[in-house]
């Protein structure tokens, strides 16, 4: 099988995000950037399929400014074979990312495409589902287990209240949830090897996709701060306060 994974460069999980003083967005200058954590899970799943002999080729795709190549390099160091970079200086909305991915997929004809279930920057959780719609493919979102069989994949999904298993006809779109796997760290020799792996550069223009935004960001503000309350001395005082002051327990 041929597998494509999508990777996004986002502000690192551990960075405390700050809103810009002019309320136009969040501060991204001099902030540590990393691969979106759910995309690391997507890459890891692809690499495992490659190692198990299920996949014969693994391609990592990213979209964004020049620095997105670093994110592709990380995917290559983890074990992807080659990269595709859609160079675009500005932020791309999920629908546009899905259209660009669809254009790449029409050329590359993979059997399965794995994406993170959401990016931790805009928290949209849309791209995988949109891509499936544009291609007319089945979708297995929030996946915690994959099982391949002939022309099908059984996907166990994380749903409210438990798990659901569905069977999808291949080719299909998968989006990853936390328990699918634990991503590896790239080893130093593999990081060195990744520098020699090819990254093809393309653009929305080359792919024939209009990426004009549909949403206008009016402003970005900090959420209302919650005031810290009081410290209580012991459990007795806590229960007394919950009963008589907050009145949240009988």
């Amino acid at each position, binding site marked *: 099988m041929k597998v494509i994974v999508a990777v996004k460069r986002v502000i690192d999980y551990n960075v405390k995000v700050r809103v810009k003083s002019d309320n136009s967005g969040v501060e991204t200058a001099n902030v540590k950037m990393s691969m979106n954590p759910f995309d690391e899970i997507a890459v890891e799943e692809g690499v495992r399929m490659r190692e198990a002999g299920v996949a014969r080729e693994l391609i990592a795709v990213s979209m964004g400014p020049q620095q997105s190549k670093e994110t592709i390099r990380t995917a290559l160091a983890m074990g992807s074979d080659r990269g595709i970079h859609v160079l675009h200086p500005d932020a791309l909305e999920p629908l546009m990312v899905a259209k660009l991915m669809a254009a790449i997929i029409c050329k590359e004809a993979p059997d399965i495409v794995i994406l993170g279930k959401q990016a931790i920057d805009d928290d949209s959780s849309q791209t995988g589902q949109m891509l499936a719609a544009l291609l007319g493919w089945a979708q297995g979102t929030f996946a915690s287990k994959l099982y391949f069989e002939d022309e099908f994949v059984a996907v166990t999904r994380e749903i409210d209240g438990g798990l*659901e298993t569905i069977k999808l006809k291949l080719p299909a779109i998968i989006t990853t949830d936390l328990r699918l796997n634990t991503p590896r760290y790239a080893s130093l020799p593999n990081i060195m090897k990744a520098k020699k792996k090819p990254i093809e550069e393309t653009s929305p223009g080359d792919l024939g996709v209009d990426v004009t935004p549909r949403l206008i960001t009016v402003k970005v503000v900090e959420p209302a701060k919650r005031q810290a309350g009081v410290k209580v001395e012991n459990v007795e005082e806590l229960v007394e306060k919950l009963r008589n002051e907050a009145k949240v327990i009988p």
Partner: protein
Amino acid sequence: MTILVYADHDNNDLKGANYNTITAASLLGEVHILVAGENCRHVAEQAAAVDGVTKVIIADNPQYAHPLAEMLTPLIQSISENYSHILAPSTTVGKNLLPRLAALLDVQQLSDISGIIDSDTFERPIYAGNAIATVKSTDAKKVITVRTTAFDAAAIGSVPADIQEISVTEPSILSTFIDTELTQLDRPELTAAKVIISGGRGMQSGENFIILEKVANILGAAVGASRAAVDSGFVSNDYQVGQTGKIVAPDLYIAVGISGAIQHLAGMKDSKVIVAINKDEDAPIFQVADYGLVADLFKAVPELEAELKK
């Protein structure tokens, strides 16, 4: 303007999250509800009884027994031209379905809205709720998922709405349902609970969650967990509260052995009253807690159980 709400249900009952979504929809215009399922008449009747709903559309057919996106999106699309806005709650069903619909309609969806400014402009949390973006959509039609904790639940109205049947769309052969494995709960579901007690890495093991369950049983509370507790394998992922788990806003949230990473706070900071029990007095959870208790949880939680029994 007429607004369509896709109802998330299990063929027996309308999930609580729909009532909050209907409130959001009512702020935009007249509300119609789509109930697609198998033997789901009772759900349609529940939806028809909600205040502000003027019509319920029912598609009752075995092909809609499970909410498969490939099967349901063509159905929603078939009636979409009558509506200016199409909404669903931000449940796993809503999140799976609506982006697929949005792409079919060539619309850039708005995910997880927490506020409505006007019919084109909405507020939504980004970066795990560390920023609130106000965004204006230029698409003619809007496709929206609703953060249900941001809107009150709609009440039951005086006159039930009409229920109208619609014809089904061509079945999809792309996906088939195999099974569900639902966590057996004697307690309320996290997103519906008035009281939640959650454990973090400080719980040290899954077995230790029993002390939280004992307190939960007294309070009629749901049990939750931080991502750290899920990643450590203490409990399953459906317990997870936070950016990548469930978003909750109960009357009382008790965080036990949870340090308070921003990703966890993103899922619970809109709770009315927050209690934190942690032995580290510098834990960030105390900065959002109304009542903080610096104590060893293995001593404090059994004491809490005893005190509540009094």
